[in-house]
């Protein structure tokens, strides 16, 4: 298929996700606990998209490669090196905001 409103179903069933470096795609896969390989296309991307992919790679949550090294990555990958991605904590934001506006 070309476009779908949501990939949640497919993500749920996947054993491995290979994605471009879009933040939404990466985070969605990581939050479902799926091993993720991020394919970076420097020509297409604007710099800021790269920031999150680089950070996720530094934190060992994802494997990175580019289009030409994808096959090699798939052949030699060790997914056990990937660290789980802890969820964000909006409760911390709520606590902070309550203090700011004076709801304690």
């Amino acid at each position, binding site marked *: 298929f070309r476009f779908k409103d949501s990939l949640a179903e497919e993500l749920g069933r996947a054993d491995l996700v290979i994605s471009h470096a879009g*933040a*939404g795609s990466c*985070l969605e896969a990581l939050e479902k606990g799926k091993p993720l390989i991020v394919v970076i296309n420097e020509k297409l991307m604007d*710099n*800021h*998209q790269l*920031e*999150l992919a*680089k*950070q996720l790679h530094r934190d060992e949550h994802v494997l990175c490669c580019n289009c030409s090294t994808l096959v090699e990555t798939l052949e030699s990958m060790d997914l056990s090196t990937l660290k789980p991605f*802890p969820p*964000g*904590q*909006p*409760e*911390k*934001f*709520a606590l*902070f*905001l*309550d203090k*700011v*506006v004076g*709801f304690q």
Partner: protein
Amino acid sequence: TGGHTTEILRLLSCLSESYSPRHYIFADSDKMSEAKIRSFEQKRAETFSSSQFTLDRIPRSREVRQSWTSSVVTTLYSILYSLPLTYKLKPDLILCNGPGTCVPVCICARLLGLLGIKRTIIVYVESICRVETLSLSGKILYYFSDYFIVQWPDLKQKYPKSVYLGRIV
């Protein structure tokens, strides 16, 4: 727009019902946010029956990669357009997270503050995608907001007046 809406709804998910009524403002060209917001509010109404919210659209201040000169014009237009809306709503708190759409509204709120009409608290949360650099909206609102929240430690170092709470979406 898209990712921003998803992020802001996650931020709202843990807020108490004291944060009511909620007024959502988004770009007229945005096709998907309305559905996401309605779905969020619908779920919320299941727990908090007195939930109130409104939706308003304003012209988008700037398209991605729009030229500088035309951006100034479209942003000024958005500011003028947003002024009556901001005046009508007179928000106690503005929560925004990065689309260009939020800048005119915040500027209007500051104007109303300067004129002694309404003092609004502006809280800006930079997107989780921003690890090392701020978005353009972020660079502007770093100076206009009361609280500027970043989600990665690098940004906290670069922008010392910001607040770092870790990842919150």
